[in-house]
């Protein structure tokens, strides 16, 4: 089918075009083309009367295509599409040809050549429109339902923000309690507030949104399928064995005969098999750790019906329109012997040090010994140029300074050394570095080629540093404790595989573009926030969580999202099922599917396709075309351009 009643409009642009390009000549040159029904020139096509002209012509001449030759389509494509639509024609049966920026303005000393070029360009536009087909935007319904994976500070922030805008949230947490690493940390910078306090406040807010946030703790995602607008989620909720409320949980916990290392405190303390990790943990029900429980029944005696040691796992299924990944990070676990780790008593990591502070009141003690002198070693598991972790973990410098200052405030007479590479207390966090100096904490700088060495001497640890600030002299620091400022490591969760979200080089999840689309992934409808994307502190984490909520709301508040119609389409007749196109697609929108007769054919997921056309470029059979830029259209444009004027 060829569109053969095309209206062609050449704009003077108040002289901008017509001073160079002979617009009358252009009209003359195209008006008799077989595809053209009417050709006109006009002073300002973008003006209201200019647009009206198009609308009227569509009706009067029963046009089935429109070409406007004027300025760049980046300026007025939408304007003219609107006019075409108002005229009653499909807005994609229109092409804007740029004869201002691409002709009049760049060839202003060659009016004849510019006119000839304009004619050829307009003809190519006519050629393109003559083969154009009606298109419409692809509408995807977006129910206000979102899955948030992970209930650390990022997941909670995102869930809250969404719920407040009437979005139904499924918040799924692997652990029996929510709050993640912030609850576990000591004071959070820069507010100086306790992590657990911040989480407590968020939990209070969360309780208010109970009707909209369905929280699943102790839960794993079993399967995930579908695409943006409709993901199907299967969640397995593992038994808590505590099924109801009881006023005597504390007695039950006390009576429990089992004692195991408490992972919340990194084994610094013990907990029972039935336990809360900390005061004010949420959900408010304790949990029974069945791996260690011997089912002695002591707790059942006290709490009766509130405890069911035979509780089974449950499966829950639901649909959501988008998925938010907020799965967080793991602290780097140093290798045995790395700066004396697990080799000498008193060498611990920063997260453990923070728990130690939370647990030690009055005096800072570790394994019964008072700690007076501490050396912090920075960049452990970060900035390894040729190693496993090339990246900088961003938060550790400030977190270490913050912890050291908190320790100084809490305990008397501590002596603190920082053994660093660069102090990256960026932005306003510089004040922590300054404060540490004021308080007399000492800084020593090492270069990665000559890292500090930790040795044991009597009951002291000796840290030896080739200190760049002291002209490369080796300085010895006798200390009681060495704290390794460990970086963040990416986690690898099953959901990543289920969704096939891409990773960046550092192993964290990859956003589409850090500046244009910072919270979206290449998988449509899958958004990321917090430390699963990159090392971040709490401030940056909560900001990204809110940003995720905002992005989601741009879909869900309206109830739908519209995607551009310029997507790839497969000509099943030509497709041989070779599969070359599948890996070519940047968004995994192509799948080979078996059709009747056992043959395989390529199928495009319209929702995932972003319209780059790469699949068409690789197809050996020209079986894939990009709508709006079909190869027959492009060839006809080439034909039109070379034809003599």
């Amino acid at each position, binding site marked *: 089918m060829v569109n053969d009643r095309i209206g062609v409009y050449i704009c003077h642009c108040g002289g901008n075009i017509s001073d160079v390009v002979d617009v009358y000549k252009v009209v003359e040159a195209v008006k008799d083309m077989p595809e053209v029904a009417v050709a006109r020139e006009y002073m300002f096509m973008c003006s209201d009367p200019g647009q009206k002209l198009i609308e009227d012509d569509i009706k009067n001449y029963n046009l089935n295509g429109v070409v406007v030759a004027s300025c760049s389509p980046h300026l007025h494509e939408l304007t003219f599409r609107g006019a075409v639509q108002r005229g009653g024609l499909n807005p994609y049966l229109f092409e804007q040809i740029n004869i201002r920026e691409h002709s009049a303005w760049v060839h202003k000393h060659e009016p004849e050549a510019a006119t000839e070029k304009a004619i050829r360009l307009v003809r190519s536009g006519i050629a393109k429109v003559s083969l154009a087909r009606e298109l419409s935007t692809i509408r995807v319904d977006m129910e206000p339902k979102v899955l948030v994976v992970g209930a650390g500070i990022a997941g909670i922030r995102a869930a809250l*923000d969404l719920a407040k805008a009437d979005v139904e949230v499924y918040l799924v947490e692997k652990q029996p309690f929510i709050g993640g690493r912030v609850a576990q940390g000591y004071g959070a910078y820069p507010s100086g507030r306790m992590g657990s306090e911040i989480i407590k406040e968020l939990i209070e807010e969360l309780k208010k949104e109970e009707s909209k946030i369905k929280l699943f703790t102790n839960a794993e995602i079993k399967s995930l399928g579908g695409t943006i607008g409709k993901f199907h989620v299967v969640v397995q909720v593992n038994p808590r064995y505590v099924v109801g409320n009881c006023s005597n949980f504390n007695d039950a916990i006390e009576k429990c005969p089992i004692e195991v290392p408490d992972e919340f405190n990194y084994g610094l303390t013990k907990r029972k098999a039935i336990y809360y990790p900390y005061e004010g943990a949420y959900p408010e029900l304790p949990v029974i750790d069945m791996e260690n429980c011997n089912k002695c029944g002591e707790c059942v005696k006290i709490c009766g019906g509130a405890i069911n040691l035979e509780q089974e796992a449950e499966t829950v299924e639901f649909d959501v329109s988008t998925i938010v990944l907020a799965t967080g990070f793991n602290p780097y676990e140093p290798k045995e012997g790395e700066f004396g780790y697990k080799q000498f008593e008193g060498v611990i990591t920063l997260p453990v040090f923070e728990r130690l502070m939370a647990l030690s009141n009055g005096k800072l003690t570790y394994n019964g010994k008072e700690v007076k002198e501490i050396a912090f070693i920075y960049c452990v598991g970060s900035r390894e140029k040729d190693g496993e972790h090339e990246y900088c973990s*961003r938060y550790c410098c400030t977190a270490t300074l913050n912890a050291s200052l908190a320790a100084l405030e809490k305990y008397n007479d501590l002596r603190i050394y920082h053994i660093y590479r660069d102090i990256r207390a960026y932005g306003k966090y510089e004040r922590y570095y300054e404060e540490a100096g004021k308080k007399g904490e000492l800084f020593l700088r090492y270069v990665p080629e000559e890292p500090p060495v930790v040795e044991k001497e009597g009951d002291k640890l000796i840290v030896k540093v080739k200190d760049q600030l002291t002209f490369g002299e080796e300085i010895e620091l006798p200390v009681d404790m060495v704290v390794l400022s460990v970086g963040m490591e990416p986690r690898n969760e099953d959901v990543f595989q289920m969704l096939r979200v891409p990773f960046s080089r550092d192993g964290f999840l990859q956003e589409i*573009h850090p500046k244009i689309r910072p919270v979206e992934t290449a998988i449509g409808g899958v958004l990321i926030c917090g430390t699963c994307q990159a*090392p971040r502190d709490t401030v940056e984490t909560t900001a990204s969580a*809110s*940003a995720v909520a905002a992005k989601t709301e741009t879909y869900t508040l309206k109830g739908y999202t519209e995607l551009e119609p310029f997507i790839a389409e497969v000509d099943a007749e030509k497709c041989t099922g070779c599969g070359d196109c599948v890996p070519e697609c940047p968004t995994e929108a192509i799948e080979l599917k078996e059709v009747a007769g056992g043959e395989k054919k390529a199928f495009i997921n319209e929702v995932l396709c972003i319209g780059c056309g790469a699949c068409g470029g690789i197809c050996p059979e020209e079986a894939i075309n990009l709508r709006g830029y079909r190869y027959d259209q492009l060839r006809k444009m080439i034909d039109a351009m070379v034809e003599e004027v």
Partner: protein
Amino acid sequence: MVEKYDALVIGGGVAGMESALVLADAGYKVLLVEKSPSIGGKMAELSKVFPTTDCAGCIISPKIAATSKHPNIKMMTYSEVKEIYKEDEGKFKVKVLKRPRYIDEDACIGCQRCEYACPVLVPDEYNYGLVARKAAYIYFAMASPRIAQIDLDNCILCGRCERVCPTEAVNFLQQPEELEFEVKAVILATGFKPFDAALKTEYGYGKYPNVIHALEMERLLAPSRPYNAVLRPSDGKIPDKVAWVLCVGSRDKSLGNPICSRVCCMYSAKQAILFSAAQLLADLTVYYMDIRAFGKGFEEFYNMAEDMGIRFVKGKVAKIEETENNNLIVRVENFETGEIEEEEYDMVVLAIGLLANSDVIKVFKNVNVELDPYGFINQFDVNANPVLTNVKGVFVAGCASGPKDIPDSIVEAGAAAAQCIDYLYELGYKISKVETAEPEGVVSGK
């Protein structure tokens, strides 16, 4: 009848545009007010951006286009918010001063004929005076709105622009206009102020022609740069030995700014990389106190710069002196050698810091928006909700609350939009789905 909007966004830089776009996409009506003649902010001046070295224009121009065309955004450029009264939750009265361009904005088609006809040449502020512009001019090539303006301070009233204008848009009698609006929430995205390099007298900015600051270097490196190469100002020669001096007006209490500006380490590494890519044999040095390559992909970028042969020297440059041929001697304690280094360069780039630009708080007449000790807008609940200010219904995004790079600003802009939406929901201003009828007083996205 006072025009009503759901949100007022002050500042049309990358953060302000992003906040406005998210709100508008979600279906809210936004008033975006920008002081300068075009939206785009500082990012529109930049060359390429770290750590991906994608071109700043490629990112900002689609955002500029999307903002200017969005049916839910009313954009007021060359305008200033003068007064804000918070009358109630969800009700802010706003006065905006629209400065005259001496051009009828509706008539101007951005053809630049006035610009060609204008005989007056003045230094172009967009290009930091590296080139000249006319008194009748369009702010910069990507500017939006693409409307000319006449700089009456320099105009000689010859009337040539008036004669050549095809739409009779020139109007020398235009007056400033004060307009009133009512909005339900406010987002502050007023960005930062670059440190005035001349205040660090030891570095000779303004005295030695070949000492330039980083934003000038951005223009020299930009694909749309004024000359086709990086040329040193004194003699127009291509420099082949260049130094970057970090922490100029940052981390320096003696200059009144104790905090770090977050971006200078990285933009300097980036400038050196871009320069080196154009001139492989150039001898490039970056003098730093600490290299703060902390963001995603930053450390890798810094390593790449080192691998390209760019020299990173730890040492705070104490002073710069000029030689007779306008070369520059940089004096620093080099920590690797433990000696004082006096090295001669063709050109020196000062990595100027980002200072607070918080005059906007003065427009709030009956509420006090708090500042932090450094003059930035204070983040009221910084860990749990970093975009809140102390005033309910007023949010902050981007460099207005502290120095920040582009990705962090954009993320925060999204966050501010989210909190703004939650605030509007709390007050009952909900977006209704398009299928249902539009309840009164609520705008729906179409």
